[in-house]
Structure formats: structure tokens, C-alpha cells
């Protein structure tokens, strides 16, 4: 089994160009499970876990309001306080991934490459309108998240391409990520929900995981609350608005029955999570039913 241990993006891309069917190995937390189960056979491997350029993060833009995350950023990195303060929902999503050992090696780029409907970071990236940068020997291109994730474990990567950078806006406003599983840790999401608030932009963006082949935005719910929420005081919405919001979020879900849950429970849970998320983000003094 030939393995290229790349130490630069260029080297990785050159190797991928030479072996278009090669498997890219970063943290290996998804890949090696498939290999060990015998459902994926390995030909050429390009290991990208020793490429310094893929690690680390920086702020870009005139107002330093775009966060540039290397695709090799691990879940543990994402939960570090300095980074967590910039994208709290992404940090919280990363904290729910697997065990500490898994989080130490699992990467943001890997979560995108696997593109599982249950990928924990994907709803947050969807809510943030993340932009994914892909590089190959022939150059680079950028795709918005909703064009990158194309289906169940399917994405827009073409042979020879490597995920290098994920860009998300640094927003002013609270962020929430809630995940339901039938175990209190180390569990695949039965459903998850990310909610981010852009106070200056006076909008709320909400995305759902594990209730469709791809992460879903609850657009109608977003439109509803953008017009009605008090972004000045972050006052709690009245119960009627919370109910309508939660119903619209639940309506956006397209869940299925499987061995992890029934579709009915998933839709129910999405509604509960939506209520809780909006009330956490808008905790103001107005009376709120629990």
C-alpha cells in the first residue's frame, strides 16, 4: 500500500494529481472504520495530517470579520477558548464529536469530506454560510457549503482535489448548537440544530442536522423571526412567535425512520430544540414559558 506523507499542500495536490483515486487520510476517524470493516479497500493513500498549512486559523478581511480555518483543524482545536469565542456554535458542535481521543484527531475538513447527514459541524457551517476552498494541482476554487454537500455522504470534491480552507463569518450575536442522541456522550446525532444570530444584520440563521440527506436551513423560520425579533434588547419573543418559529423549523425537517430514531421523534425533537435555541439566544426579560 503506497502512502504519500505530504508536508505541504502542493505536495499533496501533486500526489493526488498523480493518483486521482487516492484516499486522503487526515484524522482517519471515519476512513479507518470503513477500512477495518472491509467496506473500503485502500489503494494509494495521501496522508495530509503533517501539513502545517492545513492547521491553524486566522482572521481575514478589511474588518477582520472572516475566520479562515485550515481544513486540518481538529475538533479539539475548535473547542479552544480563543477560537470558540469567535464561533461558539462550531466549538460546541466540535465538543459533541466522539470521545476526547477522537476529537484530538478528527478534523473539520474530514467532517466535510465524509459529508454524513449526521456530521456534527455541518449544521453550524450551513448556518454560517461557510465557504469551502478546494485545491488541486490545477488551482483552487471556492464553494458555498450548500453546493459542497450534495447528498448522503456525497460532496462536490472531484478527483485530485483537497479541502484546504473553510471560511466563516465572525458574527456579533449569540450562537447555539444542540444535539440529541440516545447517549449522553459519544453518540451519532439523532438530530441537531445550529442557530446563529447576526445582530447588526438583524437576522437569525438556523440549520438542522440528521433530518435530511444534507444539512438544511429553515428559511421560512428565519424570515419570520428576522422581522419580529428585538435585536436591540435581545428580548425574549412571545410564546406565539416561539411556537410559530418552532413549527416552521420542524416543518423544514425531512426526517426518516431508521435504527437510531423514528421520523416522528426527529421532527418532534427539532421543534423542541428550536424553541430552546431561540429562547437561549434571546433571553431578555420578557416572560417566557419554559
Amino acid at each position: 500500500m503506497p502512502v504519500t506523507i505530504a508536508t505541504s499542500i502542493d505536495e499533496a495536490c501533486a500526489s493526488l494529481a498523480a493518483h486521482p483515486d487516492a484516499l486522503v487520510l487526515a484524522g482517519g476517524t471515519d476512513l479507518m472504520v470503513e477500512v477495518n470493516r472491509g467496506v473500503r479497500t485502500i489503494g494509494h493513500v495521501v496522508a495530509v495530517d503533517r501539513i502545517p498549512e492545513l492547521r491553524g486559523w486566522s482572521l481575514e478581511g478589511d474588518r477582520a470579520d472572516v475566520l479562515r480555518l485550515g481544513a486540518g483543524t481538529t475538533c479539539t482545536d475548535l473547542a479552544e477558548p480563543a477560537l470558540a469565542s469567535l464561533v461558539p456554535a462550531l466549538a460546541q458542535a466540535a465538543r459533541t464529536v466522539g470521545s476526547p481521543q477522537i476529537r484530538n484527531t478528527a478534523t473539520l475538513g474530514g467532517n466535510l469530506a465524509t459529508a454524513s447527514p449526521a456530521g456534527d459541524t455541518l449544521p453550524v457551517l450551513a448556518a454560517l454560510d461557510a465557504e469551502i476552498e478546494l485545491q488541486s494541482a490545477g488551482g483552487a476554487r471556492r464553494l458555498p457549503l450548500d453546493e459542497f454537500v450534495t447528498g448522503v455522504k456525497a460532496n462536490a470534491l472531484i478527483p485530485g482535489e483537497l479541502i484546504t480552507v473553510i471560511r466563516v463569518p465572525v458574527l456579533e450575536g449569540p450562537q447555539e448548537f444542540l444535539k440529541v442522541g440516545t447517549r449522553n456522550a459519544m453518540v451519532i446525532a439523532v438530530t441537531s440544530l445550529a442557530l446563529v444570530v447576526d445582530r447588526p444584520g438583524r437576522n437569525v440563521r438556523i440549520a438542522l442536522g440528521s433530518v435530511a440527506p444534507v444539512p438544511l436551513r429553515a428559511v421560512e423560520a428565519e424570515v419570520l423571526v428576522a422581522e419580529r425579533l428585538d435585536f436591540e434588547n435581545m428580548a425574549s419573543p412571545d410564546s406565539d412567535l416561539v411556537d410559530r418559529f418552532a413549527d416552521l423549523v420542524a416543518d423544514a425537517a425531512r426526517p426518516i425512520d431508521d435504527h437510531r430514531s423514528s421520523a416522528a421523534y426527529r421532527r418532534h425533537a427539532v421543534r423542541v430544540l428550536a424553541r430552546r435555541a431561540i429562547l437561549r439566544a434571546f433571553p431578555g426579560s420578557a416572560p417566557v414559558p419554559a
Partner: protein
Amino acid sequence: MTVVETGARTSVGPRIGENAPRPDGVPKVTGGFAFSSDLHHDRMLWGATLRSPHPAARIGGLDTSPALAIDGVHAVLTHEDVPGSPTFGLEHCDQPVLAGDVVRYEGEPVAVVAADHPDTARRALAAIVVDWQPTEPLVDPALAETADPIHPDGNVIRRIHLRHGDQSAADRDDLVSVEGTYEVGMQDQAFLGPESGMAVPDDDGGVDLYVATQWLHVDRDQVAACLDLPHEKVRLTLAGVGGAFGAREDLSLHVHLCLLALRTGRPVKMSYGREESFHGHVHRHPARMWYRHHATTDGDLVRVEAHLLLDGGAYASSSSAVIANATCFAAGPYMVPSVEIEGVVVRTDNPPCGAMRGFGAVQTCFAHEAQMDRLAAALNMDPVALRLRNALEPGDRLATGQVIAGTLPVAEVIRACAGHPSAALGSDEPMARPGGAGRTADAQHVVRGEAVAVGFKNLMFSEGFDDSSAARCVLHHGVATITCACAEVGQGFVTLARQIAGEVLGVDEVVLAPVETTSIGSAGSTSASRQTWMSGGAVQLACETVRRELLAAVSATHGVSIDDLVLVDGRIVSLAGDLDLSLEELTVERVEAEVVHRHAPTSPLDGDGQGDAHVSFAVSAHRAIVDVDPDLGLVKVVELTTAQDVGRVLHPLQALGQLEGGAAQGVGLAVMEEVQVTNGRIRNASFTDYLIPTALDMPPLEVAALIEQPEPGAPFGAKGIGEPPSISSTAAVAAAVRDATGLALPRVPIRPSDICLGDNALTAEVIA
């Protein structure tokens, strides 16, 4: 017994009651321990198994030639290559080594291959051509009795109709009656080390099998029968065991490995993957149980009626004994004058079920404890008071008519557990709330519940089984060598045997000989909470025999009465102080003894399920405090407290380990662990989807009390302690969730949707 004040002990050897270090402890946590999957031989081939993709099918034909044609494939074997008995089984010899013309469950082995590489073996499996003719699987156990038989032995594996006391005792109109139907899902033992082993052929037509198992000799007997070899030509050696919990009582890859090794003349290794392992061993029986309890308005139990239906899956395994336990202990550790239990275990095309920690008593404990809570509510009585009022005591009769001759501190464990102060705090930390790391609940979304449950079961095999364990003790140059075929599966016998030998002989150094079948007779199974009693007892007896022989020799040589001699710290000394001899010098010539230890005999159950069928009993209680998020149906077990009847603690740390581990498995069954089977197919054969508790799910276990009432007949008075922790824990957690939510929750594991959407709300229909 002579008591001698010897002051502070000067020796360093292991003794009873101490936390002697486990010889395999450090290697296990540092990665140096050789598990069965680490077996290696330079010339070895890799074995692999072709399994049925269908829960039920006829096999129209099977062509192995494309597989044999692959370079590197050394053998492809089918049922036609089994020279001896085509079937095996623990109690009924009904399970094919390799399926012939029909398969009865998804994953049933059909062919085995040996190849030079695991990938080659996998390719060979894919190349075997099978003419599958799928048939409609029988998957509903309720239909099994009336359906066409799916096996020549029929669909009812065993039926027990237990009747005890006056059967018309409840024909009065002044009783309070409660009725309910309960279900328990299929739990997996979830050991960490999947099935693996290696067979090495000898030059003489025999074979050595290195395998992780719970009972070497009964494996050997079954393997030899299938190979049509005399016992002495099949030699088993215990390979490093990565957990068992009942899942290694049945044969898995044993015969396959030997067939391949004998055919190829090469050592053959096989290791199941995790998914294959879920298909490769038996699980805990799913159960559907109808109950009706009758009591006086004062809360005295008058009569318990129940119908128990266990799904045995495709083959019998130990189902006959499991249904006996479920039936015998169906009423719980309570004094019930009138009992009628019908227990049935049936055959279906579902995965085979058999032994798992708790062995039938887990299922019925969940049901009888739910009934006791329901009865307490109907009586407007405190549920703990109701249990105490009806608690069994020594001298009472069980539902089988057997009088409890030994110890059984039912009331003591209930009182200790229920009365233990709780340290449970509020849920200030978000991760500590239901939903855990998913941070789904805020404090105002959480309700708390609390409940106590109690359960009991038999120790050791029952119903007249001739149970024994053999052990040999050799004392040579002051070093004791113990030979016993007791399978160490994690329970700690390797420590206990050394402690017992050290205690009896007063020696520092105790060596355990390799565990295999040629050097000693059977030790029986490492199951049924029996090895401390049976093999510990055998070691004790062997060592005491050696001790007696030594003391007799010294007595004769030195003219000192044997009663005036003691064996302590590697020396034999006289009480008068005029004699002090070194054991090392006294045993320049080896002194040895070999014994077979038996417990008191038991009897079969008669036609009414009556008889002195059991040796001894142990009881435990758990109190669970849970937080529940009713809107999402998520549960956090906040605190778990236990009290257990242990006879005597031989090793405090290992005792705690048994109590913690068993309780964790009980928590798992209560809120998450289930092999999900739909139309005969397992849907979650992985640890991604078969969930077991993590550190965020299992709270620290509070031990309220270890009740030490020495059990007559047991070594040092010690009862087996492995199973009770898994019995009452599930019932307690489920009851606490009921207390928090006010829901009936008649099924475990409790699913989130059972709480927030009312799923699985079984009606109390009579299923008799």
C-alpha cells in the same frame, strides 16, 4: 479452628480479604496482555466464515470451486466436511456446525475458508456461489407455538408450568390486584474482544485449539464430537479473554478453526470483526411478560400469576436453563403463598439467545419490580415498605417449594440501600443534565425521580446438574502451583486462587499453571456466579489437603500433636514455640493433592415446577436517582446506590469492580442497550449504534453496604457476586424514570420517544 496471634504479618503473599494485585492488571492497561486476537504463528493461515444474509432460506446449491481457484486459498469447507456430529449445543445438540440445506438466522455460518491473507479469505468468501432461496422468516415469538416448525426439534424449546400453594388463593373479593405487561429488549454482552482463536494441527491427527472461552472442557467435548476425534486428540488452551458475560459459553469459531487446521495441516487463525461478532454469539433473551399480583389491603402478597415468553432465536443454546431461572425467580425475593407461572421459550428465525449475566432473572426482575411499585400505588403504600413487608427470609419457601437453607438478607439490602444518604446534587452543570454533551436541556426542563428495586437469583447450576471443579495443588520448595481449568474472563479468579492458596498454605509465592484441558479435569463454566464457590472451593480443598498432609508428616516426625501446629508465613510452627520449620525445606520433595469439588446436590423441577433445584441464592438492591427531560425523553442517571448480599468479601477492589460493572450493564439495558432486530435482521451491529453507557451515563456507584453473612458450604463463606448487580439495577433505573415522568414505561430499554411521544405503551393484555 485454632486462632493464633502472630502479630503483624511478615510475608508479602496474597491473602483473603486483601486487595491483592491482579497479575494481568498492569499488562492489560499498558497494552502488553496477549488477547486471543494477538495469537500468531509463523505458518498460520487466516480463516473466515461465509454467513447467511437471510434470516430464513433454503440452500438450493453451493459451489465452492470459484473460491478454491483463487491463488492463496487453501481450503473451503462446508457441512459435508464435518466428519462427526453435524450439530452442537450446550444443552440441546441442535445447531449445525455449518448449515446444510437450510439457514435459520441471519449470520448463520454456511462455509469456512482458510487463506494466506485475510483479504484473500474475504475474496474467497465472495467467490462462493450459493443458491439462496429465501423463505418467510418466523420472527414473532408469539406465533412460534402455532407456526410450522422451523427445526426438527420443534418451536417450543421448553415450557415450565410452575404451580405453588393454593391455586384458588386469589378467589376472594377483598384483595387488591394489579396487572401489567412488560417487555425487555435483546441485550448484547458487548464484550470488547471479539471472538478469535487459533487451531494448530499436530502430526498425529489431533489438534490444539487456543481460544477465548468460558468453559474449556465442555468446548472440547463438543468440538471432539463434531470432529469425530477422541477427547485426548482435541486439546484446548485458554487464550487471553477480552470479556465474556455469557457470550462465550457457546461454541463460535471453535469447530471451524479445527476443521480448517486439520484439512490444511497448517495453523489457522480466525478473528471476528465487530459486526460479525454481533452475529457470532448469543444475546440476552427478549422477553414479553404478563403479570398479575394479588395482595391483601394490608399489603401481604397472596398470589402472583405470570406468563413469560422468551424468544430463544434459531437455536436452543442455554434457553432451557434461562427459562427455568426466569420462571423460578419470577415472583422476586418475596414470600408469596400462591404462585402460578407459565414460562415458555420458543424458537424463531431471530438471532439465537442464550447466556448473559443475570440469566433470566434480569427480565423477570424488571417486571416483578414494576408490579411491586404498581401494587404499592394501588395500596397507597410506600413501595419500600411493601417490599420489606414481603421480603423473603431464610427458612421461607420459594415459589419452587424449596426452603431457603442458607443466608438471604433481603430486608437488609433493601434497608441499607433505601436508607443510604443521597449525595445527589442539582443539575447546575449543563453537561450533567439529560442530553449530556449535546447540551439540550436547561435546568427548568429537568424533572427528577427516585426508586428502589430488589432482585435475586441462584448461584451455580441448578436442576440436578452434576456440577464440579477440579484443582491440583503442588507445594514444592515452598512454592505453591495451582492447576485449575477455570477460565479467567476478567472476574479475577487469577487473583482469588492465589489469595486462597496463600491463605491456606501460608506461602508467599503461588503460581498458576496454564489453563488447558490435558492437565486437569473440568472446572465447569465461568458463569452463574459459580467460580469463586466452585473453583475457589476446589483450590481451597486441594490446598487444605496438602496442608493436612504436611502437618501430619511434621507431627509424626517431631512428635507434636497436629492440633498444636500452624502454617504461617512460609513456616510451620508449634504453638508451644519449640518448633519452627521452613516450608521451603519441608517441601524439597513435592507435596501435592488433586481434588474434585462439588456443591450439595440439587433436584430437577417436577411437573409443577417444584423441587429443591438450586444450591444457593444472592440478593441485591439498587436505588436510582435520575433526571429526565420529558420534552425530549432524555435521561441522566444521577446517582446509583447499591447494597448486596455477598457472604464474605474476599477481594474488596474486585468486589467493587463486579458491582460497578454489573450496574453499568443494568443502566445500559434500562436506557439504551438493545440489539435492534427487524424482520430477523440486526440493524445496529456496531458500537456506533449498539450503545453502552459512557462515563457521562454511568454515575459513580455508591455502595451502601456489602452484607457479609457467611454462606454455609461456600469457601470462606463467600457467595458469587457477579450477577446480582445486573439484575436490580435495570429495574431501579426504569422505576426512577417512571417516578420522574408519571409514565408506565413497561418496556426497557426506555427510548426517548417512549417518554415524549408515548411509544411502546403496552396494554395489559393476557398473553397466556
